[in-house]
């Protein structure tokens, strides 16, 4: 049965492997035919900044674009982005700088299950 999974990320892409975990969980859910939504805030916005080039570990931004191409919806909090000097137009393809008020509240109300990846 197709359901909607919301994954809520609050860890930065270079802090630990949380954002890699989110990518693996999202891929597995897409493979099972579920709808996947990812919302990042706090440090969880950092994976969407375009132009990042990690040398010795996965490029989460690129992986998020691939997830979006498979139908995942990826949104991060604009306030948290602005606090870190990241502005609309600087996000990787397939992701969106949105808001808790408009996007996260909608995602929460529509999700069948929510998983928070945070420390």
């Amino acid at each position: 049965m197709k359901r909607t999974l919301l994954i809520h990320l609050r860890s930065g892409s270079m802090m630990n492997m949380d954002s890699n975990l989110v990518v693996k969980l999202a891929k597995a859910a897409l493979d099972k035919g579920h709808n996947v939504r990812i919302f990042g805030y706090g440090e969880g916005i950092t994976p969407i900044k375009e132009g990042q080039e990690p040398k010795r570990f996965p490029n989460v931004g690129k992986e998020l674009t691939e997830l979006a191409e498979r139908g995942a919806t990826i949104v991060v909090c604009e306030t948290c982005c602005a606090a870190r000097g990241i502005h609309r137009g600087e996000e990787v393809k397939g992701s969106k700088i949105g808001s808790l008020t408009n996007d996260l509240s909608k995602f929460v109300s529509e999700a069948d299950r929510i998983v928070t990846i945070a420390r």
Partner: protein
Amino acid sequence: MASILFVMLKSPHENVNLELASDLGGQSKKAAILFEDAVYYAMDKKASKHLAEHVDEVFVISDDLAARGFDCDVGGKFKTVDYGQAVDLIMQYDRTVTL
């Protein structure tokens, strides 16, 4: 019967309040799923005993065990799963709480 799946990411040697699982879970069916360094719970006798006191089942991500050099030999209440099975568990339990 209500059910809760506790998502765990941190190692047993970090600050993790396992009592919360009993406090929040009450009479619900309670399970834990171990990602990243939380898989060390499965390999540390004292930590695994402590965790097993608070939940009915423990699922351990096999990829994360292997990434840390452990083979997948866990026993008792502990069971290895892959990411696809993790998604199924998330959908099967009523809700998740991250500890």
